[in-house]
């Protein structure tokens, strides 16, 4: 069916049979993407709510974990993601101007930055592994004053950053697809909806991190 849709298209290669024109299709895609991001927001919202409740319940235990968070890597990663959002914007801009090579370059740069983030994240996870800070039977924590309470923070840390990293991996996969499609001349100044949509998604994932960083790394540094 997907092939038929392309055949049926009249003036734009990306126009699907059931839309009247490209404008309608673009509006539909954009609205759809925003609705999807709302869904994502609620998805992360469940974890943010749990975080808020437990931090309120165990403020001291939560604050005590900051010393074991690698703030340097966290900060570098924050910078990396902000840069990658910037290169993503440039990629979207380039394709809107029809500049194929620039688009590929910026997408590749975004992908590289995304991978840098994931590699650094891996380094952090490895540290946690070495320190026995992975929640579960092997969990150990030097400061015994808080019993098992700190484990909940590490649980949330892994759940939240893990879900975030999963979204990064999906995003990286999407960018690879975009690079291939751009190279095959599938996008043009007239039709580049997928690039724009992946751009929105990428920015969303970055914004989630902007919240995760202070909430998870800087708790003990606030007062």
């Amino acid at each position, binding site marked *: *069916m*997907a092939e038929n849709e392309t055949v049926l298209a009249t003036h734009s290669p990306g126009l*699907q*049979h*059931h*839309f009247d024109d490209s404008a*309608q299709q673009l*509006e*539909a895609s954009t*609205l*759809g993407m925003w*609705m*999807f991001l*709302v*869904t*994502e927001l*609620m*998805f*992360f*919202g*469940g*974890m943010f*709510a*749990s975080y808020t*409740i*437990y931090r309120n*319940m*165990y403020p001291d235990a939560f604050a005590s974990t900051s010393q074991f968070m690698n703030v340097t890597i966290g900060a570098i990663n924050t910078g990396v993601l902000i840069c990658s959002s910037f290169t993503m914007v440039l990629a979207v801009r380039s394709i809107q101007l029809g500049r194929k090579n620039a688009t590929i370059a910026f997408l590749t740069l975004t992908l590289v930055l995304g991978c840098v983030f994931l590699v650094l994240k891996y380094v952090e996870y490895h540290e946690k592994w070495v320190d026995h800070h992975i*929640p*579960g*039977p092997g*969990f150990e924590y030097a400061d015994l004053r808080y*019993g*098992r*309470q700190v*484990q*909940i923070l*590490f*649980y*949330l840390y892994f*759940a939240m950053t893990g*879900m975030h990293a999963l979204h990064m991996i999906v995003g990286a996969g999407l960018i690879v697809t975009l690079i291939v499609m751009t190279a095959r001349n599938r996008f043009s100044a007239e039709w580049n909806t997928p690039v724009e949509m992946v751009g929105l998604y990428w920015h969303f994932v970055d914004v989630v991190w902007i919240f995760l960083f202070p909430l998870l790394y800087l708790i003990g540094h606030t007062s």
Partner: protein
Amino acid sequence: MSTTLQPPSPGIEAKANYLNADYGWKSWLFTTDHKRIALLYLFSITTFFFIGGAFAVLMRIHLLSPEGMFDNDTYNKLFTMHGIIMVFFFLVPSIPATLGNFLIPMMIGSRDLAFPRINLLSWYIYIFGGIFTLMAVVRGGVDTGWTFYAPFSSTYSNTHVILAAVGVFVSGFSSILTGLNFIVTIHKMRCPGMTWSRLPLFVWAHYATALIQVLGTPVIAITLVLLGLERILHAGIFDPTLGGDPILFQHLFWFYSHPAVYIMILPGMAVMSELVACYSRKRIFGYGFVAFSSLGIAVLSFLVWGHHLFVSGQSMYASMVFSFMSMAVAVPSAIKVFNWTATMYRGSISWDTPMLYAFGFIGLFTMGGLTGLFLATMAIDVHVTDTYFVIAHFHYVMVGGMVMAYMGGLHFWFPKITGRLYPEGWAKFAALVIFVGFNLTFFPQFILGYLGMPRRYATYPEEFHLLNVMSTAGASILGVGYVIPMIYLAWAWRNGPLSPQNPWKAKGLEWEQSPTPPPTFNFDTPPIVTEPAYNYSGEVEEEAHG
């Protein structure tokens, strides 16, 4: 499935339609036609309905004697799997994924949903989730109740909780994608002249449903992820011995699962508006109020979840607010019931099968809704929560309401979907059997509940015996009632008389401007709307409602 995979009998082939456009399993499993996807869903959810129903029958047989037929663990698994399958794999997708999927594009004059491939994807995700859940069933079942309360589910249960939770988690994305598709479609795909104030109320109610699907479902998804991880790691997020809070799970769970009951009932209300209008030959009384009451329900539905926690130790003042909001949400529901009833006033009322189901819906939903007020009234809730009163209330809304509407809708649009008519006599008979069986099954449970019989009891004291026997007797009638339509509808699909384009003389683009059964792209000529919805009186006029 076999009925649709093969070419229909000769005669119907005169005209190209979505059913005969293409043959072979590939043309179904890779279709992006919303009508074919709706049929894929129809067969899948019917399968799940009968699996879930079989569990219900076994439960009722078990409860025939106070000591039970099976052992306690078996019974606990039966009600858990009945709940999980019926809620997540039948009720949530039922009307939206079948009738909604089939009709929304046609009702608004579109060739398809906005994202046809995502629509197909949502069906695959649903099936994938279903497979996980069925695996949990086949490998020995789950015994946590469909509510998965921690720490029982996270620590104490030794059944296949994770498999079942993964199934529910996965199928949630199917629901999200359906909702997302509907919202975008309703916003962006309306044909010329189809303004918001001319939308059929079916579409309005589905729009409200879709909002809840998109906003609520991700929360249950993440809750189940946290629960599954907790079960593997025992890190304590819901385990009080490690510092976790089991009530937090209940909050997160009901934040989705209460709105979810509106995901289930709003589409039933969607169907009701169409049935009452068509079989009364009247414009729905107070169109604007009915439309906006759907949105009102959608918004309020997110503010009432705490009424499941009145006895859990939640702050009494929080309970007070939730009690108030829960009563407030009854107002838009009442508005709908009154408006449907008022629509019948001075109408031309036909007693065709779909309208019989509509009568059933109005009555039973009224009872379900009113008993909801009992549960929202805190002092009463303290006594009846977690008893059979809740079971009866829930089934009056879901089976007496939702399933009645679903059956009514299925009969109403059967000619549209298949191009054939169903046997009216059998259909009326089945509707009557279902109505009688339903009331006999669930009415005694209201009494049982107030007498204090707790839900999820594998064994029960002797004094509850009589009412349980009555309930089981009713269930056997109800079970037969559901099998009859299954048989005659399957028969009529191949052998029923051919239907004219608009057998009920109904209003709406899907009947008036689209052939029956519809062609692949729904309309032979691009539809244009020039009159308000339900213009049965033939008066062309525009008026501001709501």
